[in-house]
């Protein structure tokens, strides 16, 4: 069982969840990361399971918002819960 990242993406002004934000992950320390991207649901949530430990760059792209990049370091079996404002 790998590490896990889940989170919610909201509008920084109104704190409303952002649906259809696209989340891509890349890493220079983790091998064999599949090139698939996740889309947030109607309440702005996403969840990424079974990740290898390492340092990840998470890019969030949403229509009408500035693209945001955050960096997360995951330990073995760690779960991180992110709250991201755009």
């Amino acid at each position: 069982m790998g590490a896990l990242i889940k989170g919610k993406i909201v509008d920084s002004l109104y704190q409303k969840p952002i649906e259809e934000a696209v989340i891509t992950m890349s890493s220079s320390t983790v091998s064999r990361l599949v090139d698939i991207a996740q889309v947030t649901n109607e309440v702005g949530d996403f969840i990424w399971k079974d990740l290898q430990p390492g340092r990840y760059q998470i890019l969030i792209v949403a229509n009408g918002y500035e693209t945001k990049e955050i960096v997360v370091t995951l330990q073995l079996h760690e779960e991180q819960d992110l709250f991201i404002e755009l």
Partner: protein
Amino acid sequence: MKKNGIYEEQNSDETGVIEESFEGSGNNLEFDEFEDTLIDETEESANDYLEVSSDNNEEDLNSDDLEIPFEGNETTNEGTLAEEGTLEKVSGYDYSVVDEQESEEEENEEQLLDAYYAEFGDPTVAKLMNSESGKKMMQEVVIGKDDRKQIKGTTKYPWRAICSLRIKAKDGTSWIGTGFLIGPRTVITAGHVVYMHKHGGWAKSIEVIPGRNGSKKPYGSCKTSHFHSVKGWTKSKKRSHDYGAIILPKNCKYGNKVGYFGYGNYGFFDLLGLKVNLSGYPGDKPAGTQWWHARKIKAVTSRTLVYNIDTAGGQSGSPVWRIKNGKRYAVGIHTNGFSLGNSATRITKPVFKNLKNWKNKYK
């Protein structure tokens, strides 16, 4: 064999590749009922790349190893696309970069190959990577400046045969990916697009949008829950078996209209150093836009291709193709980002056979 809505076909060959498929999305499907009949495969090793097909050094492939493309019945007034050797001709792209890369790499080619092959099983990799030259190599393979080009004329062939995918996983999560047509209603993609081990297994549904350009869907879209992959992926989760197919409904034969890619089982020496194209729908760009890039294949293993073509999440399933005699032939299916270079599942003989079966079965 069809059981509880699951269509399971075993199609083994000399390397033990077994086809597996999923038809429909009944609520009561028990995926655990699959019998694990995977034939043990020989473990990949650093020497696997030496096992080349009998056609390795031949200029022209046997017709059994090459499926020809079809450019579709759809016509545009945008003119015929030019080409640059094995690459598409895309306005504004600096093709000299590809050749510069070639000359820079020649000096270290031998060591680079050692490193790539080592990643697939050679224990000398650690020693190599700890050396000064190894560290230098690592820096060199990190993809630098992003010089991907947006394809704006997505209603031209071959761009219209590339499909944006909207994936609904069984656990309710939504994803984006890429696929490409190889027949009237057969779309090839990565195995992890149709079967997501940690998100419920077979996808609940996938919406296929050929030639998408932002919010524009020039050919509409079709949704399906009929997928194929191989047990090497669904059961064993082997990176080397990460490929699959999306079967469009009978009333959605996009390939007849927009055309489809050919594909070929090329040998090691044909592939190594070959300049190839990759185009798909990355998630780090404006939604639904198609982006192209090209580089040489840096390494070839028995089942994978490695290159420094820039990609991002959302491009899994993109075609990696060459042009030959004016026709487009896929040589790989893009799947991974990796610190040593991005990579594709190589269209080997068993992969070729499965693609051909999936194409011919659904017309």
